[in-house]
């Protein structure tokens, strides 16, 4: 499965990439913010997007709205914090399929990825 990881912090990207690798997902592309992601998505078609919420230049919510306007149905998992959980509804309305709250365990992330992909495939 190809995954695009949209996260401004390099440290976090490394951590998330490491976790994805533990889960068996080794084909991972990175984007540093929403704008960078939109750019990369013109050439790269992932099977799943893992998107952070707070990013400079273009935050996660804005990116999702703009991405969905391109009629892409690729499943999106929002990586959020405990304090941002209240805004998950807004994110789902914007087109996010699922969310995971950090810090997360590999098992939890794996679970979210599996259920998101399965649900999307069913639809």
């Amino acid at each position, binding site marked *: 499965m190809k995954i695009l990881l949209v996260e401004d912090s*390099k440290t*976090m990207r490394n*951590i998330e990439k490491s976790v994805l690798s533990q889960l068996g997902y080794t084909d991972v592309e990175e984007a540093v913010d929403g704008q960078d992601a939109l750019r990369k998505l013109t050439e790269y078609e992932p099977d799943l997007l893992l998107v952070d919420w707070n990013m400079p230049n273009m935050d996660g919510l804005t990116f999702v709205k703009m991405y969905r306007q391109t009629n892409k149905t690729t499943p999106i998992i929002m990586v959020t914090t405990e304090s941002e959980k209240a805004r998950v509804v807004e994110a789902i309305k914007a087109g996010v399929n699922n969310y995971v709250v950090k*810090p997360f*365990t*590999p098992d939890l992330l794996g679970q979210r990825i599996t259920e998101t992909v399965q649900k999307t495939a069913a639809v």
Partner: protein
Amino acid sequence: MAKEQSNPNLTVDIAVDGMSATLTLNVVEVEVEGEDAEPITAEQCLTLLRSNGITLSDEVEKEVHALVKLHVVDSTSPHSDVVATGTPATPGEDGRLEFNEGFDPDEERDLASANGAGADDSVDYYNRSAFCLVNVGDEIGHLYPPGEGESGRKVTGDPLPPIPGVAYTLKVDNTEIEIKPDGDILALKAGLLSRDENALNVRSNLEVPGFVDFSTGNILFHGDVEIKEGVRDCFVVDVTGSVTIHGQVEAATIRTGLDATLTGGMAAREKGVVEIGRDFVAHYLNGVTGVVGQNMTIDKEIINCQLVVKGMLMGENAAVAGGRLHVGGSVIIGELGADSGTPTELAIGVNAEVEEMDAKIQSIVDEIQDRTKAFQPEHDTLKSNERKLSKDQQKRYRELRTVLRELQELESSVHEAQEGLHVVADRCVMIDITVQRLIQPGLRMNLGEVTADFNDELTGPVRIYRDANGAIVVQDLKSGEPPTPLHAIARVCQVHQPVEDEQAPEPDSAKAAA
């Protein structure tokens, strides 16, 4: 270092045993020249820890925040700290044995500090025991099972199994001690509680290394006792089995269910008592009162004692002087009587069956007397007001008079029967007395139906017995001459009927004068 998450900025090391996690904040590399290095945040650290399976807690977050603070202050050097610590498993308490108060066989029981009876009236110094003695049913103690311990946790949350304690192994003989399912330990047998490492048992043998005195207290024991020294005044040795006492017994009480051996003799000063269930062996006895259930053997002397020996008395080298001996069986003794003329009495004839019958008859007599006592007061009251009695009272008075008369007659009959029994029993007394050396003047022999008073010295060895005709005779064992009637040697009287001049034949001159 077991598991390490490699990352340019952050690393976490989980110890091999999973009991600690060390977070290292490295020097952050500047990616783009001229730009600041990306700051390391607590969120990143926590995400890294979580992604490595570390359980996050308030303590972990606190440690992480503290470490990040250090990094913020100085990001030019690495900062490392243990941010998560596991909880080790707690081993359970080992099983243990606890004795109830007074039942620890290893406990020092120091009675020697007692100042003697009367030093403290609230304490019975005689009845304190220096030994750990148990009775049937005594709750000796409790065997506590080992604790299960508490489980621990690794930093990843994986449980560490608890380490149970080690059970206490207690070996017991199931016929002596019971360990109940709830751990209570009971004595099934009376005796001396003894412990040998992990074995607990109840012994039927007690050894007293010294005297029986204030350092030991009275000895009340189920089993056999050996006393290496003696027994002091006023102490009691009461055992269900046999007792052996090597030293001198003073004015004490010796009670046994079986045998007693007093190799050091007993000087009881008319205050000591023996009640021996079976055989009694003593070096000497002085001033002792008591009963011996079977045979008695004496080495040296019996002086001023009041003793009943239901079996034989043996002491061919011993002397009996003063006091009264009542012997059921035969007697073999060295000397009888005291050369000072101190009255000495030897009674022969203790028949257990006769005694038992006698006791039963006596109990009937007692019951008759009790009933008489019950009716007598009412009878006497009615009698004193005889003239003023109502019809019912008169009737009652007549009834009581009849009952009391009948009871009186019954009591007389029973007394008569009892005396008849004594007569028959005395007639049947087996007489077999052998005196090896000497019978001193002043000796009285009760031989059932007759008593014989020896007023002259009689040199032994002699045997006194009942011949084929039933007559009591004295045989000189040295000379081999025919036996002589007892009445020719001692003054003989009938116990139940007075007999005159039966003792000595009339001289011929007296007969001729008549």
